[in-house]
């Protein structure tokens, strides 16, 4: 999932300018050479152009693609991964019990034969494994492998950031939060034995939950439960993620990992479906401008487009035709510290939320993204609600609300600071917001940039936490629980940062977490979402989105906002057309 998406943003605008100037001046100097070169490249039939081969358009059984994966991931161990660049590698090699339907983003069976059977009290889930599944080395895949993987996900010595998604399983949280250095091995194994994950036979995996949790099914599609093999982990030790022991049940196998240079994945012929691509190379280019150049040099078959390159792409007919729009999985918002003035007054919070022109922000600053036109959950995700528009841009209403604010809250507006993780992009965003509040509300806000590694420490000060700040939340899995309950229920990540605690909201979202009936569940969450927007501990600003360039010969991809690899949820359909 675009879980903890932390894209390294490098200011490339100045490079772009340099490049544009260079191009103009060099024309005169090297003009002749360029003409010669263009003729030469036309003669050598660069892979970019269509050829007259009769087989063009058909799937190439030896199809090979090269993508950019950015920088070297810190780990590719499924139970330890948290960033999209880590998960994206494991996703090619492993497959979970469930996966997602690329069109609806609902969980559908993968290694499981069918949806799980849920006991009437909602506390026990039984998964049956498909027949005949194998690892890429030919060894059979059983429920025991999944049991090991899920237990490893709770294991305090494996210490993955994503263990929390399994805390709804009986005993997982208790074991995971033990200190492995202080506890005796006997205590640890006793805690392990209490975890509610059990392979009752080779085909059946049973989970016991602490409480009914309709959101548990999508969790069983996540990397935390991908069936890493115990024998590989033991044999490889710290280096088990190297190709020799990184053996999975997924569509590809890892055949080479040159650190800081590239990954090579080759088709796994033991996979349950026939995969049409033979080989995937993933190179590591940090600079988006370089990746863009490499794409144009046909060294990459896909490349993300950053805002600075967008103008170049849209000015070039061939490139423009290759541009693909992607939905995003993140929402960005202004957080308000509700514990003290001015934001202890809901009128001030709503006034701030209603006084920013989101569409202008997308047009002038963000370029790639979508103006928030609903609540906290972005489009493409279950729970997106565009009838939730109480925070809509409305200067007159915003001013009226600010007038209604208490004298104490109004006094608090003096010297108000806006805190953000320091970067060029965030600075531009902050200056824009500063201008909006000044123009539309007449409130002067000071900018307070902070080193990004020190940002979260600021929020541990309770009442003295930053008053006004920029934050984002990216989905871990496509379910409302991961948005409303994880983030905003009392004690949730952003609830703790803003000091927001609402019984009305908590009741609705927690009821949604337990509700088994999908329609009732959606209604409960929509109610909760509206309550949240109305209480406004945060002002929703924009939803993330992506743009990428894709060569015309790469076909069969159904894009989805949570893809960690384009088309990953139906990789058997993806092919390289002969060209």
């Amino acid at each position: 999932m675009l879980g903890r998406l932390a894209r390294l943003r490098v200011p490339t605008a100045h490079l772009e300018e340099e490049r544009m100037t260079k191009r103009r001046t060099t024309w005169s100097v090297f003009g002749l050479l360029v003409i010669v070169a263009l003729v030469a490249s036309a003669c050598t039939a660069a892979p970019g152009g269509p050829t007259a081969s009769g087989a063009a358009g058909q799937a190439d059984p030896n199809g090979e693609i090269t993508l950019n994966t950015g920088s070297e991931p810190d780990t590719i161990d499924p139970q330890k991964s948290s960033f999209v660049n880590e998960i994206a590698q494991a996703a090619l090699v492993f497959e979970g019990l469930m996966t997602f339907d690329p069109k609806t983003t609902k969980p559908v069976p993968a290694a499981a034969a069918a949806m799980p059977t849920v006991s009437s009290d909602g506390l026990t889930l039984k998964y049956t494994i498909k027949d005949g599944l194998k690892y890429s080395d030919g060894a059979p895949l059983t429920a025991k492998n999944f049991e090991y993987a899920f237990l490893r996900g709770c294991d305090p010595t494996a210490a993955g950031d994503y263990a929390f998604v399994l805390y709804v399983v009986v005993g997982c949280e208790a074991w995971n939060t033990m200190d492995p250095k202080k506890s005796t091995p006997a205590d640890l194994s006793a805690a392990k034995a209490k975890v509610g994950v059990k392979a009752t036979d080779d085909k059946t995996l049973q989970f016991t939950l602490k409480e009914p949790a309709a959101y548990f099914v999508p969790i069983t599609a996540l990397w935390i439960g991908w069936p890493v093999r115990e024998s590989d982990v033991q044999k490889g030790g710290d280096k088990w993620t190297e190709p020799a022991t990184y053996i999975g049940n997924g569509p590809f196998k890892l055949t080479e990992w040159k650190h800081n240079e590239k990954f090579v994945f080759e088709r796994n012929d033991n996979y349950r479906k026939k995969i049409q691509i033979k080989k995937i190379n993933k190179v590591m280019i940090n600079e988006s401008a370089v990746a863009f150049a490499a794409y144009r040099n046909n060294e990459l078959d896909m490349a993300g487009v950053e805002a600075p390159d967008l103008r170049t792409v849209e000015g070039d007919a061939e490139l423009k035709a290759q541009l693909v729009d992607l939905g995003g999985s993140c929402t960005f918002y202004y957080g308000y510290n509700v514990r003290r003035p001015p934001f202890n007054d809901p009128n001030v919070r709503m006034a701030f939320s209603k006084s920013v022109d989101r569409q202008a922000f997308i047009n002038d600053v963000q370029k790639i993204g979508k103006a928030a036109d609903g609540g906290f959950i972005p489009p493409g995700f279950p729970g997106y609600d565009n009838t939730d528009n109480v925070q809509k841009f409305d200067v007159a209403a915003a001013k009226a609300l600010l007038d209604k604010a208490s004298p104490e809250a109004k006094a608090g507006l003096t010297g108000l600071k806006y805190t953000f993780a320091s970067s060029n992009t965030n600075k531009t965003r902050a200056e824009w917001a500063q201008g909006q509040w000044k123009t539309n509300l007449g409130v002067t806000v000071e900018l307070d940039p902070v080193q990004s590694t020190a940002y979260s420490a600021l929020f541990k000060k309770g009442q003295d936490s930053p008053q006004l700040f920029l934050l984002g939340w990216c989905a871990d899995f496509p379910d409302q629980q991961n948005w409303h309950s994880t983030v905003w229920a009392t004690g949730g990540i952003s609830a703790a940062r803003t000091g927001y605690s609402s019984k009305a909201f908590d009741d609705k979202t927690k009821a949604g977490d337990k509700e088994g009936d999908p329609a009732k569940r959606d209604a409960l969450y929509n109610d909760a979402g509206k309550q949240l927007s109305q209480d406004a501990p945060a002002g929703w600003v924009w939803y993330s989105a992506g743009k990428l360039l894709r060569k015309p010969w790469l076909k069969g991809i159904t894009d989805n906002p949570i893809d960690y690899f384009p088309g990953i949820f139906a990789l058997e359909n993806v092919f390289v057309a002969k060209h």
Partner: protein
Amino acid sequence: MPALFLYLCANPNRSNCIAVYTDERVLKYTIRRLLLMIPTLFFVALITFGLAKAAPGSPFDRNPDKPPKQETIDRLNKYYGLDKPVHEQFLQWLGNVAHLDFGISIVRQRQVSEILAQGFPVTAQLGVQALVLALAIALPLGVISALRQNTIVDYGSLFFATIGTTIPSFVVAIFFIYFFAVWLRLLPIVGWGTPQHMIMPTIILSLGAAAFLTRITRASMLEAVRQDYVRTARSKGLREQVVIVGHVLKNALIPVATVVGPAAAGLITGSFIIETLFSVPGIGREYIRSIVALDYPIIMATTLLYAFFIVVANLSVDLVYGMLDPRIKVGK
């Protein structure tokens, strides 16, 4: 002055030895300088450690939007010994380094020595190639422009040198990428390994040093060519070639050698930008990443390695002086 042979042996059993003729004073001098390296590296380490620790934040705070729980951070801090006072951490690190144990990368969870062993050869290869290329361009070009002063060759070399020193390498790199890769489709941009992949990074990395060395060589040739000993050599009836190579160039190389040392160290260790732009799997990218991520063990090991190379380069220059001009007494 008692002469002696210094044996540089590949094995402790004294097979595969290279005998280097030296004299006692030079040897003592070299040993003294090598010993001086220890306090130098110590202070480099101390300052780097202090600065790295003074930087705000924590290596476990990778994503401000989703911070790990405080208990998790506490546990990790304890595991990596980051909960101890800074001076204790430094002493412990120092003790480990004395046993050549550079620890484990906090973020990658791989041995630092393993990461360096994979990245450094690539960085060093790139640097050495660039240095050789820079010298191959700078020495002939400097000599010719000095001998043909104020001709078109001289002006050409001045033009090259001005371009090479004033335009930053990342600008040249982007220009090269667009010209040779996107337009001409002659060279690949991404990766490392084949000679084609090495052409662009090597040339771009060498440009700055080549330009600078060209100017130094030219200036110092012009200086030397006017010296009395050159007139003497000519009046002895020596052939022009011998005069230029044996008398002018040899003397002119002393200032050049002074700057080649640090330049060599700079090329071997300083290719961060080029490595990032061309996706070269060297140590420079890892270094930058480690600083951003506050991966202390990598920051420390890499800085120390870089410092070591700069010290060695400077020492080599001082030793080379003695070879170029016997009047310079190394070790006095």
